[in-house]
């Protein structure tokens, strides 16, 4: 266990180092890709804690994403508050909203929770769209660039800010899920009644996962606002919640790596398909369909199985057959 952890941490550090050195050597386009994957990676990691580990349903995560994006921007536009102050304020505000919402929403189960969270996400979107003097309305709003020491902060500062946030998010998820809290969340996912019988405070841990989810979403939203440079309410419609949900399912529910892999695949896909813009919706649907139908454990859950099956050769080929039959 400990040795495994050492190896994991070494790999994480290696990737972080590689990403940190990236701006020196490669074209701006690749840096942009890393930024996008990191933003959606943070969002997917947050949702994964609530859905993958805790086993609940959240279809309104774009609501927190929206709060995190709009609040620092509006503070900066209206009251000239610096982005680095507005950023934590936005996150704290999103967590506060999540805490208030947790009382009506976390009592619900299954489908009622799905529609409850979905309606929250839609409500935030509608507020962003229909109240122009609060948010700039449907026309959107331009995000002023971040300043540092009186001058423009520039792309590189921003790149490292995102990288640090992403790394912190990943490490938080990594250590959290190995700890007592992570085990409690998994117990709740597997059987709520049994977990409660074991003395796990189900409500407390559910609320904890929900707040972490909203905080990560808000962080991703704030970073997104700076990256995009322009906010329009339609960015935060239902489709954003669903696409983040699709990310964690494609990568594999309940694995941190899966959330990041899923985010990478679903974010980079549109850039591979940029010549056939109209097909994106169909392709996303097809990917989700195929993943659910043929590898329900997601990419991270299935590939190691396939790999070990290949390495063992033909002999244990009976095992998967038996699995399919049962």
């Amino acid at each position, binding site marked *: 266990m400990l040795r495994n952890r050492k190896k994991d941490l070494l790999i994480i550090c290696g990737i972080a180092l590689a990403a940190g050195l990236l701006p020196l050597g490669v074209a701006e386009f690749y840096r942009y890709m890393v930024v996008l994957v990191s933003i959606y990676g943070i969002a997917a990691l947050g949702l994964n804690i609530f859905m993958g580990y805790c086993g609940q349903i959240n279809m309104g995560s774009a609501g927190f994403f929206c709060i995190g994006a709009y609040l620092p921007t509006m503070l900066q536009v209206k009251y000239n508050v610096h982005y680095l102050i507005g950023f934590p304020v936005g996150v704290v505000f999103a967590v506060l909203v999540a805490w208030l919402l947790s009382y009506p929403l976390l009592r619900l189960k299954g489908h*009622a929770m799905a*529609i409850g969270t979905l309606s929250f996400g839609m*409500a935030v979107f509608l507020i962003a769209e229909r109240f122009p003097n609060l948010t700039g309305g449907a026309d959107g709003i331009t995000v002023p660039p971040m300043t540092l020491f009186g001058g423009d902060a520039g792309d590189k500062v921003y790149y490292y800010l995102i990288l640090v946030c992403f790394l912190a998010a990943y490490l938080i998820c990594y250590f959290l899920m190995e700890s007592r809290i992570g085990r409690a969340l998994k117990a709740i996912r597997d059987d709520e009644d049994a977990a409660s019988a074991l003395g796990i405070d189900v409500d407390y841990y559910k609320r904890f996962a929900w707040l972490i989810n909203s905080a990560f979403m808000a962080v991703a939203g704030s970073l997104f606002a700076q990256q995009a440079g322009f906010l329009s309410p339609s960015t935060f419609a239902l489709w954003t919640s669903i696409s983040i949900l699709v990310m964690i*399912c494609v990568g594999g529910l309940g694995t941190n790596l899966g959330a990041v892999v899923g985010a990478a695949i679903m974010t980079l896909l549109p850039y591979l398909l940029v010549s056939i813009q*109209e097909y994106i919706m169909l392709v996303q649907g*097809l990917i989700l369909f195929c993943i*659910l139908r043929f590898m329900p454990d997601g990419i991270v859950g299935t590939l190691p199985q396939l790999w070990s099956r290949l390495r063992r050769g033909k002999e244990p080929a009976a095992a998967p057959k038996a699995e399919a039959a049962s």
Partner: protein
Amino acid sequence: MNNILADIVPILIVGLSLGSLFGLVGLAYTVIINATQLVNFGQGEFAMVAVAVCWASLTKLGLPLYVAFPLAILAGALMGYLTNAAIVTPLLKRDVHPFYPILGTMSVGTIAAGTVGIFTGFYWMPIEHFFGNEPLQLAGVPMDSQGVLIILATVAIVTGYWYLLHKTRLGLALRATGFNREVSLLAGIQVSKMASLSFVISGMIAAVAGVLCAPFSAFTATDGLILGINGFIALIVGGWGNPYAAVLGGVLVGLIRAVIVGYISSAHAELGTFVVLMVVLTIKPQGLFSGFMMPKTMNSRT
């Protein structure tokens, strides 16, 4: 005072027809819930596909409405059958996260929306009013003929579904499947066929709702989702797993929406709907009319 009364009758009629529409979609959800306890997140797209088929056969093939409408219903039924056969049944056989079958229906919906979008370029698919644009005059009150048609169709479909569910052997089998899958299997009911049938019926109801709605507000390939969400809200406000409560919930949501549009502003209508939903979820999560016309065992929420 007289003015307010003169205003309120058309508003109520618009609300009633809009509400019937939401109720129909809610009913379509409930048909599947009753047999399988699953929510079909592709429901709105069933309606959208039906509208697309109807629009294509009317404008591209030049077929008359009485051919195009049944074709659209057939398309809805086919969508329902395919959704069940392609992803819901295979996923139910495996031991996966309970949310996966629902995501599966969503993926079918997305594929449908993407495919229709490619053919139509995500443009409007307008269908003309069935009986012309002239409003009906009833006791001096002008009414949209399409709205009246929706209300009548809803009444007819709910009555038909009630008859099927409570007066036929098939309905008994459907109800038994929803009540307890294992016991129904023991009693010799073909449970998987019942699930498939419920998807087909649900697709047909959604198709009727979609085609009747299309003259009101033209659909694009991505608009199915909005109709689906409104129908789902109707079902949650009304009552989980109770077809009549879903229709009543739809009517209530539609009326509230029409009153907001009529007296406050059309910009806040959707927000109002979501506020109503949140309030209902907070004070009465099982739905406002959950016991209406149903024995207690049928609307157990799992």
